[in-house]
């Protein structure tokens, strides 16, 4: 009885190890880019994404981040965004769209000599808030802007 149990466990371990290494190989070929944080881009709710990105971090709502977005975006596939800030020593800007299937759009890391300025074009699935989070030192600042989307930009059509 003991003997078979031990054998069973050994086999299970061997099988699991084999499976993990095989799956690992597969994973590497599909996601060629090992540094890309796939978990942060999960299709989930905004709060889960924020938790995944920043843990239990509190955000300071501020007007020191200026976000230029159209109030009404006629085409959700191309929504221009310009972020500037008077905050000092910003390390990252994170852009999220609350109601997109995957709320995280992009995270920009800025060097010391890089100005607190990023411009991009984003997709929005539907009318929702866009949230920009700036990390400066140990503090996290946030700014929310509501954007009304006339035609969603995440496909399905």
């Amino acid at each position, binding site marked *: 009885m003991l003997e078979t149990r031990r054998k069973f466990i050994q086999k299970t371990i061997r099988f699991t190890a084999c499976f993990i290494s095989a799956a690992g190989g597969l994973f590497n070929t599909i996601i060629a*880019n090992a540094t890309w944080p796939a978990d942060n881009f999960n299709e989930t709710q905004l709060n889960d994404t924020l938790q995944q990105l920043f843990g239990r971090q509190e955000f300071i709502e501020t007007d020191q981040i200026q976000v230029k977005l159209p109030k009404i975006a006629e085409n959700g596939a*191309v929504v221009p965004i310009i972020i500037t800030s008077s905050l000092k020593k910003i390390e990252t800007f994170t852009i999220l769209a609350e109601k997109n299937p995957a709320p995280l759009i*992009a995270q*920009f890391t800025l*060097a010391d000599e890089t*100005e607190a300025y*990023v411009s991009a074009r984003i997709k929005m699935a539907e009318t929702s808030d866009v949230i920009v989070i700036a990390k400066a030192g140990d503090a996290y600042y946030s700014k929310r802007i509501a954007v009304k989307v006339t035609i969603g930009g995440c496909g399905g059509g």
Partner: protein
Amino acid sequence: MSSIKIRTKRLGDITQIRTLIAHPMETGRNKDEQGKLIPAHFIQELTVKHNDKVISSSVMGAGISKNPYFAFKFIGGKTGDKISISWQDNLGQSDSQDKILK
């Protein structure tokens, strides 16, 4: 031809970099004419360098628009300096392009 176009502009002490990248940025949710899902294909990482020093590295998902446009500004930059931009996507494809400041 490179997929990356770079425009630079000197604004006093600051250099502005604007880039336009030819890329489908497919989310994996769109369907083709036959109603089949088009597989996800999007840029995951973008790196901007000034004379081989990274001034911005970004990670992104398919929430960035098709044929992405980005702009950055940095302090410094003089004639002859090199700006390099490179990207890598979820299928392991990549591209890079250099631009010498005028």
